[in-house]
């Protein structure tokens, strides 16, 4: 074993490690958005929720000394954001896409306002599980040092996939999402289901934010998110509102996001900034490839305003 790294093999390894590290916020935001969109509503404000969640988690972790409390507080804050969005959107003539943009601006503003004094202090980090003990290469060990939230996200994706198909609440959610009238005929209150689904989506998005501030990159500042919350919305479309699809798509995005830093680490610096655009270009190409002007997307909830 040489001390000078593992050469060209470092690139796939760095992309793999990066995919896992970068994907976690995408997993949570996209799973949350899947729940919301399955109920027939769209929340574009998750970017704001994510950043506010990141700030809340960091602030609470600094104050209490416990990252777990930080995550729980972020979830509560995210749920409140979701409830506000859900409540406003139930009124007639209110455009849920525009409200989402407004909530994003509001969430960012509140996070920057309240989080100003937490840029300096250092918060305790979320724990991670070292799976790389079998290897004696430090790069491999670092790559396989995986945060608990990644596993929770993976488990949540499997659970939601199962729940949408088999649980009563999953069926109710899908009925509401496909047809408001059918839901009313069944005696379900669509507004209430959508309100709760938006709150659940917000609280999951806030976990994504908590991961950013408490693990990777692991600090609170105003540039903590580079649009993960919004890209997750595109990711949900790509994943066809399927939770397992969301998980896999998040990994793909994470890998694309890790491409630039991975190549830079082996000395490829040409076009460095263009690699930052890789996840966005990838999303756009996938959206173009999978959309159609004549029919609505396969698997799209019927009552969703986005795909009409």
């Amino acid at each position, binding site marked *: 074993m040489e001390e000078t790294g593992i050469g060209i093999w470092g690139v796939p390894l760095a992309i793999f490690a990066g995919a896992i590290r970068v994907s976690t916020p995408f997993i949570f935001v996209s799973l949350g958005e899947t729940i919301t969109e399955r109920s027939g509503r769209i929340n574009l404000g998750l970017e704001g929720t994510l950043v506010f969640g990141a700030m809340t988690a960091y602030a609470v972790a600094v104050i209490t000394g416990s990252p777990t409390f930080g995550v729980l507080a972020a979830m509560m804050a995210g749920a409140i954001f979701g409830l506000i969005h859900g409540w406003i959107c139930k009124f*007639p003539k209110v455009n849920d896409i525009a409200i989402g*943009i407004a909530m994003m601006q509001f969430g960012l*503003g509140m996070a920057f306002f309240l989080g100003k004094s937490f840029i300096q202090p250092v918060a305790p980090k979320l724990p991670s599980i070292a799976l790389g003990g079998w290897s004696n290469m430090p790069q491999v060990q670092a790559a396989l040092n995986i945060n608990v939230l990644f596993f929770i996200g993976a488990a949540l994706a499997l659970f939601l996939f199962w729940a949408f198909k088999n649980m009563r609440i999953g069926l109710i959610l899908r009925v509401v999402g496909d047809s408001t009238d059918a839901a009313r005929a069944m005696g379900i209150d669509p507004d209430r289901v959508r309100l709760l689904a938006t709150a659940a989506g917000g609280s999951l998005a806030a976990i994504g934010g908590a991961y950013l501030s408490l693990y990777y990159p692991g600090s609170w500042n105003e540039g903590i998110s580079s649009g993960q919350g919004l890209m997750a919305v595109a990711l949900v*479309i790509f994943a066809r509102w399927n939770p397992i699809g969301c998980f896999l798509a998040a990994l793909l995005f994470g890998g694309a996001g890790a491409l630039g830093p991975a190549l830079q680490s082996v000395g490829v610096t040409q076009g*460095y900034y263009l690699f930052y*655009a890789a996840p*966005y270009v990838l999303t756009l190409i996938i959206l173009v490839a999978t959309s159609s002007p004549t029919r609505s997307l396969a698997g799209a909830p019927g009552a969703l305003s986005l795909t009409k």
Partner: protein
Amino acid sequence: MTIEANDPVLSIVGKPASLRPVLEWTARRAEPVVIGLTAILIGLAIFSLFILAVGKSPATLFQLMYTGGFASWFSVQNSLSRAAPLLLTALCVALPARLGLVIIGGEGAVVLGGVAAAAMALPLAGTAPVFLTLVLMAMAAMVVGGIWIGLAGFLRHYRGVNETISSLLLSYIAIALMNQFVEGLLRDPASLNKPSTRPLPAEYMLGNIPGMDVHWGLVIGILACIVSWIVIEATSYGFAARIAGGNVRAAQIQGLPVGKLIAGFTALAGSFAGLAGMIEVAAVQGSANASLAAGYGYTGILVAFLARHNPLAIIPVAILLGGIDASGGLIQRRMGLPDATVLVLQGTLFIVILFCETFYGRFKIFNPDLWKRTL
């Protein structure tokens, strides 16, 4: 409404026929003004509660906002300067909105417009005439911005891609492209900490309006608003766009070229945002750099929605928000509040104003069609 409502005999019952159209006109025009102003007041009230909650005085804050934004000729000029890019980025949202499209990626067109303008100026500055250089810079910025947002419109119509998300993705891609150009190909070796393109010679800058400390961008922005208003209200293209915005199917059945309208209107919208980038370069920064992504694209969304996508209403709203922006620094210094205070205020106003959309058509006083039943 009903058949009776359209009956010429019944419609003049109750009021003298001469006065009625005036009242109807007033009532319809009053609705957006009254509801809009009420929404702003409610938004300010909620924001005041927030300021009280963090232990500061909302009265002081609003007073400072007035002082910083509008109290003196100096602050008015400052507000006007800040309104200039907002006029153009708001048009980038308002024009597609008339076709029913929600475009939120204006920021991308601004930064690419700025880069295109700087790239155009590099070989020309110092040799070509000033006016020609500025015109070519503006044209380059408008073409690039138009292509960028037009692409979102094109993809929407011909590929069914949601324009809100595609325009946003394009905006992130644009910022990455700008960083690549500014750090790489176009970088001025002399710019150390803050990479930027070679500065524009002083005589090639877009100067100030005579007698004012406000650059020509304001005039360009206001002209763009007026042109947009004429296009929407007085041309057949605008009429067709409004039909397509109301009901795409109906427009297609009528044989209107919906695809071309969408591509054309989004491209025009994008070219205005690109022009905002050129003005930032030619009137404010003097070069293209990361400051181009200052959030004008996002504030423009708020301005457009506040103005209910009416290009003429954009002018006062942009000046108002320019004033709020201009007062941000003063609030920060005098009250010890973070600079994000303005962002919180904007977000609150935005939410309340969108929420108040639900009240349109609910009040009888604004709806002449409903008067007949009571009179």
